[in-house]
């Protein structure tokens, strides 16, 4: 029986112990499983389209890339599972408390710090939120990008931390970050108490998912998903892995939480070139 091969992006060194641990878990339960790591999501998306990997642990942007390429090739992508923590995230736009800005309109002709160019949470979704309110990036305000690890789709927290520091230094008038990082930065002291206020909050959206295409053996995928959803936080063997990956439980995948990001990439044309080039090479 051949292995079910999963792809994941190495956005941090901890990715290796996480997937080594899961590999052991799956194999111990009779699922022939292996994984490969990619340095960026675009490489992983292309590998999945070409059939080199069967399941991809995708960022929301990589999910959209895959879904669009698959659709144009007459194939179908499915999100089979995700973390409990991948559901209902939101992003916030911060300004300094003493800035006098108390509404989105106040950002006109100002500088807005964002995370990596391809970060859904720290760039694409918040900039789309501003556009919905009539403020278009680079037309109505300047954007300062903190491009930590492009290709990792914002998985690395560094860009958001840099954006917040720029805001506090006065090098930017606003900063866009994930709600969870707002809490983390406040707790660790990066954001001193009462130093910033939230001028806007996006709607809720979803994050990563396990993506499969329609050409993978359904029994194997079903077994993978079954074992994944059976992982229990009470199990001392997997709990450290779940803690590392940042979840308490795997939950069924859903694709209803990607509308804001889809609107953003349509508006900004973020993935058009990549999607077209993979489509062309795979036809």
């Amino acid at each position, binding site marked *: 029986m051949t292995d079910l091969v999963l792809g994941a992006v190495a956005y941090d060194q901890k990715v290796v112990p996480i997937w080594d641990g899961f590999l052991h878990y799956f194999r111990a339960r009779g699922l022939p499983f292996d994984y490969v790591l990619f340095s960026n999501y675009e490489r992983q998306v292309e590998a999945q389209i070409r059939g080199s990997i069967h399941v991809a642990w995708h960022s929301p942007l990589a999910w959209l890339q895959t879904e669009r390429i698959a659709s144009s090739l007459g194939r179908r992508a499915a999100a089979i599972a995700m973390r*409990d*923590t991948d*559901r*209902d*995230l*939101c992003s*916030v736009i911060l300004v300094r408390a003493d800035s006098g800005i108390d509404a989105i309109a106040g950002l006109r002709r100002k500088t807005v710090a964002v995370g990596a160019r391809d970060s859904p949470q720290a760039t694409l979704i918040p900039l789309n939120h501003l556009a919905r309110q009539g403020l278009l990036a680079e037309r109505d305000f300047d954007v300062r990008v903190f491009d930590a690890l492009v290709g990792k789709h914002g998985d690395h927290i560094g860009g958001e931390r840099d954006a917040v520091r720029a805001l506090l230094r006065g090098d930017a008038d606003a900063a866009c970050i*994930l*709600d*969870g990082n*707002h*809490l983390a930065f*406040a*707790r660790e002291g990066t954001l001193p*108490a009462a130093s910033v*206020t*939230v001028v806007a*909050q996006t709607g809720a959206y979803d994050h990563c998912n396990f993506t499969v295409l329609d050409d993978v053996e359904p029994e194997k995928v079903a077994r993978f998903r079954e074992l994944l959803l059976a992982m*229990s*936080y*009470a199990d*001392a*063997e997997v*709990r*450290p892995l779940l803690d590392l990956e*940042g979840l*308490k*439980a795997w939950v069924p995948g859903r694709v209803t939480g990607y509308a804001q990001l889809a609107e953003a990439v349509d508006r900004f044309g973020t993935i058009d070139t990549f999607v077209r080039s993979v489509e062309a090479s795979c036809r």
Partner: protein
Amino acid sequence: MQVDLGSLGFAEGGYLLVKRAARRVAPGELIRVTGNAEDLEIHLRAWCRAEGHRFDWRPSHEGAQGQGLIRAGVAETERWAAAAHVSGAGAHQDSVAEHAPRSWGLAARGSTVEAGAPEFGFQLTDKVEVWSDDAAHIYQQAVAAQWDPETAIPWNASFELSDDLEDAVVQMMTYLIENETAALIVPSRFIAQLHPHFREVMQVLAVQAADEARHIEVFTRRARLKRSRLGRSTIGGQTSLKTLVDEPRFAVASFLLSVLGEGTFLSLLWFIERYAPDPVTAAVARLAAQDEARHVAFGLAHLSQHLASEPEFRPRLADAVRRRHDALRHTAGLNDEVFDALLLMAAGSWDHDDLRLGHQRMMQLIHDMDEGRRKRLVRLGFADDEAAALSVLHTRNFM
């Protein structure tokens, strides 16, 4: 359950109140959180997501920012479901286990340790091998008896010895330094192998190592008081000490080092204190002897307890003495220079009558050492004749 944070920010410490509430309710139960802090909803939402609680927000509740509705999740309960209590059997929270699992790791006795913690490679995990009921008491005594080398010794006392006598003192100190170095290394090595569940034993060994560090300091300082160069170290002396340093078994090492070696050293140090030609030499010997007495007491205490539950271990201790004797059979044992230095010190001069007296005193020392060893062996349950036979086999290097 209701939690009102008032104006307290969630990140400022408000999360502690919500966390406390979540621990007090059963999974699935509702916690209502209210507050006026600006970011309350954003922070609560993010925190609940990360902690596995379900979250809903009801805006503008009775003048506050709004109300957070939290359904407590199961993660906290699941994390601790298979946790172990770090203690032995019985109702006492601090009771010592007969066997300490490596998965308890560094967790304090009496604590609760999460299942799945990494295993540490501790080798000494059984109470019978290491434990003494007297350990806590001996540790307390040791801590109370610590002395400061700077103030406890009259370094500035005025004295002048003949060159030969000063050389003899320097040679004795040189010998003491290398012996105390072995006595520091041996317990230090076992600290790293000992399961920290046996906390008091670990603490006794740690203070023992610290005692030896101080002894090395004061012996070195006395040696260098009038001389820049120290005395001689011989193959025989170092070979004897190496058998101690290389001994892999805790109980055997403890028997050879603490009971036989340091026990013998007690007689030696009191001998030096008695015949010391200057107040500094007398003081360093006296203070070291007081510490060594505790090391001997602990060795005797835990070996007595060990032998009480495993009497069959006694012949293995006797074998260890014989093996060490065989290993050292073809070495000189004690450094001649040390024996000569002790004799000259006990004589006090090159005068014939003094030398004769010095020799008699040395013979008395050897006799006292032998008697002390036999008494300690008898305390460990050896018969008189076996104790006498084993005492004779003890290394000529004293330690």
